[in-house]
């Protein structure tokens, strides 16, 4: 199977974020890492390749710094990588990102395209599904498990409230992968060494420009959310605290 994995580079989880001067984005001088859900998408792609053979290709868009996530993917076992390299990609909405990816892979035929279920920066949870629509492929989201079947694949979707569902799908297909479904591998030293010689295709903004549109949505303002809650401190001995809480539960919260 030939599998494309879409990976995003995002600020590290615990990185302190500062707003830029216009208050429309963060300042770029933070540490970055691979978007955690995408790491699971990559892991699943590598496992599928180990089972069925084929090829795993990692793709990302972003400035030079984002090449790091592709190097990581190559070191873990991806065969090659595609980097849509430009600062402008950072400000793309999900629709434009998907259009850029679709344009960058237009001469290739992938059996499966994986994304993480959402990004830890924007959190839109849309790029994979939009890409499916642009490519005319069926899709399924929040996937826990993928098995090859006679006619394509059988996937296990997570639904809400502890429900699951198996879905049979033809190939090619786009899947968004749930986080935490497997144990992530580490890159080995030899993997890191080999990664240096694996092909990495750079795609300039100009090469995909004709496939893009204006962004259809715009971040007007980014800001630190205001604390709206007034916190009441409940203190005293454990017995006093228990009594005070029950009083609030009855009269304020009204759940008793």
């Amino acid at each position: 199977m030939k599998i494309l994995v879409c990976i995003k580079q995002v600020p590290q989880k615990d990185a302190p974020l500062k707003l830029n001067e216009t208050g429309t984005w963060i300042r770029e001088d933070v540490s970055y890492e691979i978007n955690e859900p995408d790491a699971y998408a990559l892991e699943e792609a590598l496992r599928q390749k180990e089972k069925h053979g084929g090829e795993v290709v990692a793709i990302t868009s972003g400035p030079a710094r984002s090449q790091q996530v592709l190097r990581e993917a190559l070191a873990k076992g991806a065969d090659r990588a595609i980097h849509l390299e430009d600062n402008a990609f950072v400000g793309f909405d999900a629709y434009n990102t998907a259009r850029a990816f679709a344009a960058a892979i237009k001469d290739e035929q992938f059996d499966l395209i994986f994304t993480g279920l959402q990004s830890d920066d924007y959190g839109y949870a849309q790029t994979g599904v939009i890409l499916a629509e642009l490519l005319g492929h069926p899709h399924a989201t929040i996937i826990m498990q993928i098995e090859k079947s006679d006619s394509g694949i059988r996937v296990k979707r997570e639904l809400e409230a502890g429900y699951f569902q198996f879905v049979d799908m033809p190939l090619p297909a786009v899947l968004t992968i749930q986080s935490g479904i497997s144990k992530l591998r580490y890159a080995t030293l030899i993997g890191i060494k080999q990664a240096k010689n694996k092909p990495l295709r750079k795609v300039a903004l100009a090469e995909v420009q004709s496939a893009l549109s204006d962004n259809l949505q715009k971040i007007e303002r980014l800001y630190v959310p205001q604390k709206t809650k007034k916190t009441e401190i409940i203190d005293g001995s454990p017995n006093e605290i228990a009594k005070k809480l029950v009083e609030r539960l009855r009269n304020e919260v009204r759940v008793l």
Partner: protein
Amino acid sequence: MKILVVVEQREGKLNRVSWETIAAGQALAADTGGTLEAAVVGAGVSGYAAEIAAKKLAKVYAIESAGLEPYTPDAFVHALKGFIATNQPALVMMPHTYQVRDFVPKLATAAGSTCISDCIGYKKDGDKLLFTRQMFQGKLAADVSFTGAGPWFVTFQNGAFRGDKAEAGAAAAPVEVVNVEIPAGVVRNQPHEVFKEAKQAVDLTQAEIIVAVGRGIKEEKNIAIAKALAEALGGDLAASRPICDNGWLPMDRQIGSSGQTVAPKLYLALGISGAIQHIVGMKGARTIIAVNKDAEAPIFEIADYAVVGNLFDIVPPLIEEVKKAKAANS
């Protein structure tokens, strides 16, 4: 402005979050001088349409086809794309459920438009509508506008609006059944029956009272006291990610960015420090009580009632007091 709310039904019930989306739609319609209509999509959904029609709405559509059951993104997009093209709403609002997440990006793309997803509110800036959403796992918030032509799509996070604030109408809204055809070949996925894995799988998104435990519970056996408190309150037990990663509670009880987003009346957090990944899943709770030893724990930032102390000292008398109060009520 014409606004359309698409509500969600599943397993023979309207998803409770649908009322929140209707409340959001009513507020937006009032603020923009718009009209509000609602639609329910599926097979045999006119009962739901009648239920919704009790609310203050200009009209309710039952978008019907045998081909819409079971749910597939292909059929839903086919039906809604056609309906939206005819009905021409300027703004389409939906709850940000797993099912909506599965089809709305495809629908917006098919309609040549975009969706601002997982919003927690909206603002009016002059004539411009801004939709507020969390970014960077809730560390920052953004006001986002639409820059293209409609139809615009917006999804709202569970708990963003109060379902009980959805206004009833003076008389029932008219219901129109819209029969749609799903031609062969449109639906490519073949879904099987939905099933539950864990025997006691719970739907925390519908829970009114949640008692949640975090690392502060220390050992698996200590979960019993949190469970006893949940039972005394008539609530459900939940946890932060480390507890589920340890296998002390099943995954379906995990709250946060890789688990459920909940909005109960009461969220009682025991020994939860309040990592951002957890907070995004529960900050919509109407009341938050936090018990934590560490006075600096970020959970206190969003708590209504803060108890700085050892949960093992506080929970046992709390269980007793709750039981006493319940006994006095009956």
